[in-house]
Structure formats: structure tokens, C-alpha cells
């Protein structure tokens, strides 16, 4: 039986977090991160994941005030977490658009050293001039170039990690040789980067940290098949999960990779109850708390591109047409993949078919895929998803911080362990070990051996 890979995400700037829950704590205090990470480690999870934000969202020209907002810098927090965990992988999103390879390669390598081989980097792109306003370099990148830059960025980082060959860091006091001559020397001449010199940080225990990619577009899937070790997907039903899984795994062969080289793990949440009815009731409460009337209207305005403040969130969808090309919400990509017109048509169709109000519709279309049921039902559903090749595992984003993972670890994980589909103890020290990935390829050794 396939083993289920488990990851946990501390949910950040978004309305999926139930911050109004009495047990909800700080999204910033280090204690929150430490508690959630330790819980994940207690559940023998593969890794803990933090996403990134480089600009606060704005709605109608003002800072958006309804969602959880504000987060620390991911790599800094993960470095601190490396001191309070021993086996848990530590994954950070780092944008390839508003960073440079030399800096990112040394920071990710640093996390790999500090954690003893537990670092992962989720490579994301941005096309966004809005985010660019926070950077010296501004919004310099055409949307079409974001994947070419990301791919070259990652390749350049790998060249930097490989610029130290095994054994180059010697620290041999008797011989008086600290490094081998030429260690760290690199030259990269490409379309996006033209750099050369000496790389300052020898590679960490994993050689290359684990590379994660998120996104479901054809470009995203191709990038993942070529370059990633893990891909975050987003499929809530078995059929679409299987189709996406087959598609992505089939793309690996042309890059000389096998299906086991890339783990597909959808981002999900969960709600438990002692009975199916209690679980369903709790799930409904969570959804109501996630999408309040103000949030429902705000997201409707974002999609429509116009002010809808006169509308009743518990009433029908606006009859007025959306305004083409008008942007009232910045930093949100809710309807980006489909485009505005298609999104609005799609929403109207669902609402009409099922007689939904604005708030009910928004709740429906923004919900993260969620396992709802008794612990046994959830364990079985997770296992079915993995055994039928709709996924290799899951990244769980709990609804409440920092205690939201407790129930999963205390009530569902033991069942998975009994079923023999999740480890009872860590068997390796590095994240590559947990994920069953091969050691990182080293370009030089391939050339010279």
C-alpha cells in the first residue's frame, strides 16, 4: 500500500482562517508557529509549510481589513523552528520574481544546514506590478516571462549549490587547507541572469533542498514535471484528482524522470465530528465564520469590478453586469485562472441552479477542499484518495491557529498508522528521506564520473 505523505501549513493571510473562534491565537507570535510545527512533528508529518506575501491586499483603494493579515518572513521563522523541531521538514515559499538567485540560494542552503537537511523551497512567480511597488526593481516582468524567469532562477540556484563539489569544504587543520582551490566558482549566462563569481555557502546536507511547485496551469504542470520534487495541487474530488495526477505524472518521462520522483499533494482542510451529522454541522459553522456578510460582498465586488455595497449578502446575485478590466481588489487572484467574464458566468450558473444567495455562493466557490466526517471516515477518505492515485498525500491547512491540527494528529493519524499507511516513527533524518526522494542530482559528479 502507498504511504500517505502529510504536510501542514500555517494558514495565513486569507478568509479561510476562523480568527473569530475563541481558541484562535496569534498569526505572528513565534509560539503559534512552534506549537503548530510541534504538533505536525508529533504526527510524524513530512513537513511544515509557510506561504509568502509581499504586499497587503487592497480593496477599493484601501488596505483590506476583513481577512487575517500580517505575517513574518517565512525563511526566518523556519530557521527559528529548526531549533525546536528535530525531524520535520521546513518549507518556505520564496518568490522568483522579486528576488535574485544568489541571495535565495544561500538562504535556502543556510536553512538546510541549520535544520540538518530539512529545507524545502516552494518556487512561485509573480506578474504583479502592484507587488512590485514594494521593490526597488518595481513591476519589471511581463507576465509571459514569469515562468521562464522562474525556471532559469531555479537552474541558476542549482548551479550555485553545485559550485561546491563534494569534499570542497575540507577544514583540514593539519594540512592547512580549508577549502579546495576554486570551490564555489560559477558562471551563468542566460536570458534573465548573467552572473559569475564565488558562491559563499557550501551546499547543505540535502545537496539540493526539496523543490516544491504550486499551480495547476499547463505551464505550471510542465514546470513541476521538469523541475519539482513536490507539487501542491487543488482537487477536491477523486475523478478530477486522478485525471490531474495522471496528466502530471505522464509529463515526467520526457525529462528522464520516473513517477516516484514527483509527489503530488493537494492542499486541503478537515472538520471532524463524533458522528457524521455533528461533523456536517461543524463544517457549516466553520463556513459561516469564514465567509461573513462583509467578506461575501467584498469578493463579489472583486469579481464584478464595481461597488456593490447596496446589495444584500443574503440576497440574490447582482443583476448589473461586471465592469470589464476594472480592478477593485488588488493582490487577490480568486478569479484569475478563469478570467472575469467566465468566472461571473460560472458563478451565476451555480447560483441559479441551486438557488444560492451571494454569501452561500461565495462560501461554495471559495472553500478549500475539506474532509468532513468522523475520524474513521476522514482516514478512509484520505486513504482512498491516495490508494486510487488521486494524490500522494495532503498538505493540511487548519481553520484555527495554532491548535487546529490537534484533532487531526490525535484522532486521525493513529488510524492511518493502524492501517499501515503512515509512519509510526521517522525512519530518516532529511526531508528527502521522508518523501522517499532520491538524493539530489549533482551536475558536476554526473559530468566527471
Amino acid at each position, binding site marked *: 500500500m502507498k504511504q500517505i505523505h502529510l504536510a501542514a501549513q500555517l494558514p495565513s493571510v486569507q478568509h479561510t482562517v476562523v480568527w473569530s473562534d475563541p481558541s484562535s491565537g496569534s498569526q505572528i507570535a513565534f509560539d503559534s508557529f512552534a506549537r503548530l510545527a510541534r504538533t505536525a512533528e508529533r504526527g510524524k508529518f513530512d513537513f511544515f509549510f509557510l506561504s509568502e506575501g509581499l504586499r497587503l491586499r487592497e480593496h477599493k483603494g484601501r488596505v483590506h481589513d476583513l481577512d487575517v*493579515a500580517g505575517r513574518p518572513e517565512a525563511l526566518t521563522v523556519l530557521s527559528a523552528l529548526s531549533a525546536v523541531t528535530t525531524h520535520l521538514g521546513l518549507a518556505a515559499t520564496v518568490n522568483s520574481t522579486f528576488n535574485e538567485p544568489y541571495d535565495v540560494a544561500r538562504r535556502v542552503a543556510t536553512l538546510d544546514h541549520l535544520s540538518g537537511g530539512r529545507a524545502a523551497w516552494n518556487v512561485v512567480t509573480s506578474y504583479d506590478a502592484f507587488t512590485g511597488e514594494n521593490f526597488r526593481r518595481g513591476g519589471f516582468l511581463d507576465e509571459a516571462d514569469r515562468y521562464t524567469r522562474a525556471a532559469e532562477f531555479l537552474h541558476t540556484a542549482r548551479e550555485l549549490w553545485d559550485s561546491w563539489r563534494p569534499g570542497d569544504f575540507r577544514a583540514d587543520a593539519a594540512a592547512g587547507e580549508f577549502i579546495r582551490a576554486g570551490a564555489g566558482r560559477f558562471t551563468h549566462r542566460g536570458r534573465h541572469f548573467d552572473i559569475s*563569481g564565488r558562491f559563499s555557502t557550501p551546499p547543505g546536507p540535502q545537496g539540493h533542498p526539496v523543490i516544491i511547485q504550486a499551480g495547476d496551469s499547463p505551464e505550471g504542470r510542465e514546470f513541476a514535471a521538469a523541475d519539482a520534487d513536490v507539487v501542491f495541487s487543488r482537487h477536491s474530488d477523486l475523478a478530477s484528482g486522478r485525471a490531474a495526477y495522471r496528466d502530471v505524472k505522464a509529463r515526467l518521462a520526457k525529462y528522464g524522470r520516473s513517477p516516484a520522483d514527483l509527489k503530488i499533494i493537494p492542499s486541503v482542510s478537515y472538520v471532524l465530528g463524533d458522528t457524521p451529522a455533528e461533523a456536517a454541522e461543524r463544517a457549516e459553522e466553520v463556513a459561516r465564520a469564514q465567509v461573513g456578510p462583509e467578506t461575501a460582498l467584498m469578493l463579489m465586488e472583486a469579481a464584478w469590478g464595481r461597488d456593490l455595497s447596496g446589495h444584500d449578502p443574503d440576497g440574490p446575485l447582482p443583476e448589473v453586469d461586471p465592469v470589464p478590466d476594472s480592478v477593485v481588489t488588488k493582490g487577490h487572484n480568486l478569479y484569475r485562472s478563469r478570467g472575469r467574464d467566465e468566472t461571473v458566468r460560472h458563478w451565476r450558473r451555480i447560483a441559479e441552479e441551486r438557488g444560492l444567495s451571494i454569501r452561500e455562493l461565495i462560501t461554495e466557490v471559495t472553500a478549500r477542499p475539506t474532509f468532513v466526517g468522523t475520524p474513521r471516515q476522514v482516514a478512509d477518505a484520505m486513504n482512498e484518495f491516495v490508494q486510487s492515485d488521486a494524490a500522494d498525500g495532503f498538505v493540511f491547512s487548519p481553520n484555527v491557529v495554532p491548535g487546529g491540527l490537534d484533532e487531526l494528529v490525535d484522532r486521525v493519524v493513529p488510524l492511518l498508522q493502524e492501517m499501515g499507511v503512515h509512519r509510526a516513527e521517522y525512519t530518516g533524518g532529511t526531508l528527502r528521506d521522508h518523501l522517499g526522494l532520491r538524493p539530489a542530482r549533482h551536475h558536476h559528479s554526473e559530468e566527471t564520473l
Partner: protein
Amino acid sequence: MTQLHLAVALDGTGWHPASWREPDARPAGILTARYWADLVTEAERGLLDFVTFEDALGLQTSAFHLPDDRTDHVRGRLDAVLLAAALAPLTRHIGLVPTTNVTHTEPFHLAIGIASLDHASLGRAGWRPQITSRAADAAHFGRRTTPQLTDEDVRDSELIAARLRELFGEAHEVVEVVRRLWDSWEDDAEIRDASTGRYLDRDKVHHIDFVGAHFSVRGPSITPRPPQGQPVVAVLAHAGTPYELAAAGADVVFVTPQSRADAVTRLGAFEQARQRSGRPAGDRIRAFADLVVFLDDEPGRAAGRKRRLDELDGSTFGSDAAVFTGTPGELADLLLEWQAVGLDGFRLRPGTLPHDLTAVTGGLVPELQRRAAFRTAYEADTLRGLLGLPRPANRHARAASAEAGR
């Protein structure tokens, strides 16, 4: 007697280039968390105010302005901000001050990194911004070139500073932007008002709209205001232009006097820069003198040790800071003598690690305590608290309360 403040500057296996060949050195450990945790917990046992971590965006070099091809000195290191963060949960009181480059990095990333270190350490973060003029460092980024210093420039710190005036001007802007981003969230911006569905009071989250000569940044920060409000900014300054950077933007300045008389001269020059800076006279800036130290209890032994290391390395080690060899008692005499001219404290650069660090914590500190010149217990949990620096009011809150008082 005014107590003095003590910091240590950690780098590799110590500041002597042959330090890694000492029998008690752990050169293979410099890329591990354990190595640094041992050093920092030792510094905390000695009740020191803070430790600093050196960094650069290039491999270490023994020439000031150029890379070299040496293989017989410590090479390779970790990112200092992340290293400091990994040490935060392992310590309780000591300040953690990483060095970062400000010439090739994004001020926004620096602001949220240091703010996050302050959150993770519950108020013990500092930041040492540093420029680089090395053409080799610029080639690692490929986006710009910087003036390559000549051997002639390097002989005179005023000459260097003049050549790098433009980069220092840009550094002023980086420090200013980082400070504004730290203030871009007021302390009580997070309101969690379930009755109105509002998580934030958006009137307390501000765009910074910084437009400078070198770049612009819109803000606000993505990271809420850190526990200290403003983490402690420390600048190493050898001459006029860097004095101006420190005078305008720092809470702590590291100076490098070669003697007591030189300390008087340098502090005077710094005071002039401060007066020209237009910074409010009430803003306290702590002045630390940097000293490289080789310490042994037995008289003459430290000097002998340094001589032996010099021979091993094949040249006489000198530094931008004065180099002290002697006993902890002799060092205590010197520190108290120099302190009297207006220094608040010292940043000691151990010649070898761990030897000269444990000589500071186990020898110098007890000696200073006997003379009632150093604390016997930590009296504060934040770095600002240890340094006697107030927590700054948020500039927007200040503006709002001034408005209300009118």
C-alpha cells in the same frame, strides 16, 4: 559608576586568520547550528548585551576590496539573519545582531526579515546594515556595477569613504525605508472585531510612499510592527561618511579607536556628524569601540599565542580595530580607561574561538563585576532594554496624538 556594555563579534573560528588551526577550534562546525548555539549560549552565560554575526554577499577574502584565491583561511558561511533566528529559541536574554548587505538586497526583504527575527526572539533583534563596493559582489547579482576601489584608496579610510559616498547615500535610504516599514503598522492595528468582521483597523496600517534618489517603496510592511517597535540598528563606522550614516540612522555605532586619545578624536568627529544630521538631540546613540582581543590569565601568554598564530599564517595579523593581547585584568583596566572618554561599551572580536570568548565570559566579566562595572544579572528581556534605549513611539501614532492634542 556607570556600567559598561559588552558585545562580542562572532565570525568563523575567530578573527585571527589562523584561528581555525588551533587545537580547540571546531572549523568543520561553522556550518552547523550546534557550533553557533554553543558560542551564543556561552556569551549569554557571560551576561553580554549582544552578539553580532558577520556576513557578506561573497566568499570571504583576505583583501579588503578584492576576492582572493586563498585556500588556507576560513571560507564559506551561513546567512546571518537566518543563523540569528535559529539561535533565538535557544536563548532568553542576549541580543542577536546579524549583518546584512544593503547594496544588492531589497529593503522590503530586509525589513520583514529583521522584524521577523524580533518577533521570534521576543524583542532581541538588532540589525547591522553594511554596504559593499566589491565589483565581485555586484557580479553575483548582475544588475549593477559598483566602484572598484584601488589599492591606493584602501590605504586611507577617508579616501574609501569619499569614493563610496554614493553607496552610503543609498544606504541612508535603505535604513530609512526599513524603519518606516517597521512603523507602517501601528502597535494596535490588529483589532479582531468580530462584530464588524474587521481583522484590522486599516487607519492604523500605513503606506510609506517612500520616494528617494535611488528607489521608491510603497509599503505597508507585510509583517506587523516588531516587539521592540524598532529593532536596534548598529553601524560600523571608520570615517566621516559612515559616521553620517550612523548619526542619521543608527541606535548603536561601532568605532575603531587605536588608542584612548584616538577614541576622543573619533567620538568628537562622530558628535559633529550627529549635530549636522539634524537628528533630535534626545535620541540616544550608544557608542561602542571595537577591539580584537587575545586573552590569557598568565601575563605574556596571549601575546605569545598571537605570535605563534602569526607565524603559522605567515604574516602579522592586524585589523581595522585595535588588537589587544593580555590578561583579562589588563583588558578591564583598558576598557575602563577608554570608557571614561565617553564610550558606552565595547564590541570585542575574539581572536580565536572558543578560547577568547570563554576568556571574556569567564575572566573579563567576573573582573568587571568585581569592579562593579558590569551587570551581575540580566535586567531586561529586550535588546533595547539592555542598552537602556527606550521603545520608540510609532511615528504615525505620534502624529495622530499630536493632531488630537491640538
